[in-house]
């Protein structure tokens, strides 16, 4: 459920957020000072969290804040502080056109596949409702999206969920094995 239903307000918020996100994403790669570029990365992540809220994916926004802004970016800053030449450490990047084209094609392809495959109305909303009923059902769906997500994670997608846990455990063990005194 988005905070407001006023179309112009949503439009305004979208443009502010996306311009901030894109500008700071460019700043991440273009700024010389590594610490500042890490800070711009945090601004980018915050902007993406704001976009999630606009899309009605509040849970994703919260997790984005907690995991990416709160934890991963602090780890990145920790790692950066261990490097030398912090203030001029970021090598200058020129725009590499072929790589950019390949990346854009890949992203557009993924975007196309995802938009075609996703059941946007949600499984709670059946096809044979009229427009008004669908609107009500969509509101309920967004309000109930977190319990629904939890149910899905522990029933239909439990294998993927557990695989991610195993992957994280393997990463933690690998990190321990790397730093252990022999």
């Amino acid at each position, binding site marked *: 459920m988005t*905070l407001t239903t*006023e179309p112009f*307000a949503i439009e305004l918020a979208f443009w502010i957020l996306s311009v901030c996100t894109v500008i700071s994403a460019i700043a991440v790669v273009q700024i010389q000072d590594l610490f*500042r570029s890490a800070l711009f990365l945090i601004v980018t992540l915050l902007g993406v969290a704001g976009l999630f809220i606009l899309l009605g994916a509040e849970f994703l*926004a919260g997790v984005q804040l*907690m995991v990416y*802004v*709160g934890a991963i970016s602090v780890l990145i800053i920790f790692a950066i502080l261990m490097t030398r030449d912090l203030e001029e450490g970021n090598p200058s990047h020129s725009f590499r056109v072929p790589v950019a084209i390949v990346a854009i094609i890949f992203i557009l392809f993924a975007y196309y596949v995802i938009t075609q495959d996703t059941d946007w109305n949600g499984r709670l909303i059946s096809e044979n409702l009229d427009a008004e009923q669908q609107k009500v059902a969509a509101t309920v769906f967004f309000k109930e999206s977190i319990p629904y997500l939890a149910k899905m994670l522990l029933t239909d997608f439990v294998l993927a969920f557990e695989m991610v846990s195993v992957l994280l455990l393997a990463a933690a063990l690998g990190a321990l094995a790397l730093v252990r005194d022999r």
Partner: protein
Amino acid sequence: MAPTPALFISFESLQIFFAGLIELIGFGESFKWLATLLAGISISFLIINVMVMATAFYTWFERRMIARFQVRRGPNRNGPFGMLQPFADVLKLIMKEDTIPDEADKPVFTLAPIALLAPTLMIMIVIPFGTFIDDQAFLSNLNIGILFIVGVTSVNSIAIFMAGWASRNKYAILGSMRGAAMLISYEIPMALGITSVLILSGSLAMTEIVSSQSVWFILVMPMGFFVFMAASTAEMSRTPFDQIEAESELGSGYNTEYSGIKFAVLFLAEFMAPLVTAAVVTTLFLGGSRGFDFLPGGIWFALKMFIIIFVLLWFRSTWPRLRIDQIMGFAWKTLFGLGLFNIFLVALEFSLADQFGGLASDKVSLTPKYMLIIGAINWIITIAIILIMANVVGRKKYTRPEPTPSPLANMGIKES
């Protein structure tokens, strides 16, 4: 729970109010977005001003109370009982010269106090204070409530890093490195304490958490409460855990180089943290604005908040500072284990109660009878665990580790 927009200030009601006002003036449909903007601005204005004033009086209260604990008088010259002392302090800090070190990273140095203050203020918008009519938060339809709080709190560590690194001062960097390590570690027990609340409430929204507490959650799961209190005291980095500042070791740590208004803002954020934490604890564990009928809910909320603030003050004024290795050990060896055990216990009891048909009519929370049974079991287990830990684990003395020079000792700072 039906919202009562006309009688309480929330984002929705203000939006409706400003939309009506705009229509009255005669701007028409195309300016309706202004209503959203104005509602946001008024809520920000309200929260910032109320919180700053509350913090001002809180600093006076804290100084007076700590003075009582330490058998001295505390500030008592300006105004009745010294109540005008915070205003005198603020005036002094504003008039002082606002210095920025030559070597400092100036934009980051300037932004750091704001980045520390903003998350603390943002938490307040989802707290359901309880009104005379209904239980509403400023942003009452934010249904990720508690997740929003955890997410926003975690931005603090970045702000402290910004302040420490931009100062280009060894003490400041040491303070903020310690602080970031500590804050990241204590976020985990804090989240574990919250998770046990969520099992029983069945919702992330703050208003739902309050309405599901037919028995206060402190009575149902004392262990979760203790874990959450300890972790949030560390998150505020107050005295038993004040490694970020550590006046006697680091010369006040991350804020060494700050002066004038920037120092005032850093301190404002620091003194606002206990108020915010008390509000969150009240909502999660003390039943928010629930109380007996002879007083309105808002007053119950304030009373409970005051008790929590006093307990936090008690922590601060009676315990000495822990060493950094003790702090990290406490987070990972004690609180982490207790938090996980508490989640396991509550989840097990919840599913057993579900088997015996203890679910309330809303299908997510338990009936008061089952909550009280669970509470009795949990209190016994908690007291047993505390006794065991004090007698068995507590006997083992921490040995001071051999000091090794930090890899950060000379890093990144130009020798002049």
